[in-house]
Structure formats: C-alpha cells, structure tokens
C-alpha cells in the first residue's frame, strides 16, 4: 500500500517535471501555432526563435494588437512576445474640429456677409449659439448654411421659417 502511494507521488512529481519541461516545444511547432493566431490579421506576421515570438506588421488599433499579443503569450512554450508591430494612424483619431466663437467680431462680420442678401434674416447669439430667424426659401437657406457652416462656430440654430 505504502509503495503504491510512493509510486503515485512519484508519478505526480514526474508529471510536474514534465510540465516544467514544456519549453522544449520546438520552434517549428510554435511557429505553426503562432502563425495560426496571426493569420487573423493579414498585415501582421510572426517569427518564432528560441521560443520567443517576434510580432511585426501593422494593426488597425491598439486593442486588436494587444489582443493578438495576449493570444501569442497564451501559446504553450512561447516564453515572450517581442512587439515590433505598429498601430496604423487611424483616420478616426483625427484632431478635434476647431470651432470659433460665435461672438468673435471677425466671425460676426462674416455672418453678416453671409446673410447680407437676405434682409429678412436676423442673426443673434443666444447662449453662445448663433441663432438665425426670419423667413427664407429653401434655396436661400442652403446658401446661408453653406456660408455659415464654413465658419464652424459650433451649434447654429437655423430657426427661420422656410417657405
């Protein structure tokens, strides 16, 4: 009985030993597994050397890059991941739209230029927002919006009656 327990203990010890030896997985095997992970991004590639994965290429965003690195690290036998990849400059991460103050005198002059030909249109700044009132045709409203939008003064209230 004691012998059996000793054998079992030995087996457990050996199996632990085997686990600790998992780094012996060959680079070729690791390369296969790593490549399978990376195929999800056609713009990226991976190379395994001495159990270390070298990730290169480009990613659409940081999150997808981080996710892939996590997946690579999860492969049994990969000791570390060297990240040489880059994140593509996203168009969505463009600088914020620069707006001007509606009360800026230079802006006010430009607004007056924009509505000069439409005498019924009144321009006011209400709570910092440019507010236009009056009665205009749809074509006139378009002309005014074309000019006023170009000034980028933030929210503009086109509160006129459009005939």
């Amino acid at each position: 009985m004691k012998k059996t327990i000793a054998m079992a203990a030995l087996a457990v010890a050996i199996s632990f030993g085997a686990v600790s030896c998992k780094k012996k997985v060959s680079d070729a095997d690791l390369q296969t597994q790593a490549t399978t992970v990376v195929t999800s991004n056609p713009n990226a590639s991976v190379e395994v050397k001495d159990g270390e994965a070298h990730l290169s290429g480009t990613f659409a965003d940081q999150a997808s890059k981080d996710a892939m690195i996590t997946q690579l690290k999860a492969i049994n036998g990969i000791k570390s991941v060297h990240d040489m990849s880059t994140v593509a400059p996203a168009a969505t991460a463009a600088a914020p739209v620069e707006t001007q103050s509606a009360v800026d005198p230079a802006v006010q002059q430009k607004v007056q230029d924009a509505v000069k030909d439409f005498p019924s249109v009144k321009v006011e700044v209400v709570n910092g927002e440019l507010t236009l009132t009056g009665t205009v045709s749809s074509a006139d409203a378009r002309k005014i919006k074309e000019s006023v939008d170009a000034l980028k003064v933030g929210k503009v209230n086109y509160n006129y009656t459009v005939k």
Partner: protein
Amino acid sequence: MSTLQDKYSGVVSAAQTAGISNLQVQEQDGILYVSGQASNTAAKDAVWNALGAVDSTYSASDINIDVQVAGLSVGAVLTVATDESNLNIRQEPSTEAAVVGKAGKGDSVTLLEQTSDDWWKVKTNDGQEGYAYSRYLKA
C-alpha cells in the same frame, strides 16, 4: 456607425462619389462635421444636394458641411451665379468695403486669388479687379 453618421450617410457617400479630397467626417458635440475640398462647384453642389435629400429646408443644426472649392488655378474662368442681381466687386474682402465694380448674372470673371473660403479676388471683363463673394461664383 453612429446615429448621426447613419442619418447623413447619403451626404458622406455623395462626397466620396464627387471625389472630395481630404474628406473628413467627424462627430463632435452632437454635430457631424463633414469637410473637404472640391475641385469644382459641381462637386460641392453634389454634397449639398445630398443634404437636401435628408434636410429639405437646409436648417439642420446637427450637421456642418464645410466643403470648399479649392486649388483653382489663377486665371480660371468663373461664372457669376447670382439669383438675378449683379454681383458686387469690392475693394476689400468684406461687405463693409466699397463696391468698385459689378458683374452681371452669367458673366465670366477671371480668378486672381482664392483669398479665403468666402472671398475671391477676381477681374471682370472690363478689367476691374476686386473681391467677390465666392458663393456667387461657379468654377
């Protein structure tokens, strides 16, 4: 796609179809900003026509379209596109400035400089130089 981008997807696709360069579509503070440069008035108009399909009164506050005709060469011939009246040619780029000449509806003028988005320096057929409001010039 956000609700705003969805609402104005026709405007954005019109801008793409019209070949608007440096096209930027950004949402900020509840306003969809669509900006870029058009090579001629027709391309710019295509974008605004698309807005009309969504907002027929052109009164929407949740979209800002800043598509400007840009990159015209000096000497380009522009057509005066006023509703009916003559186009004022002014000494300075402002409606406050003195009127130094006029150009009739449908007349051609020559571009001297795209001074700003809204004022262009032009030369009329009778040789008068000055600034005209670009909204009334067709390139």
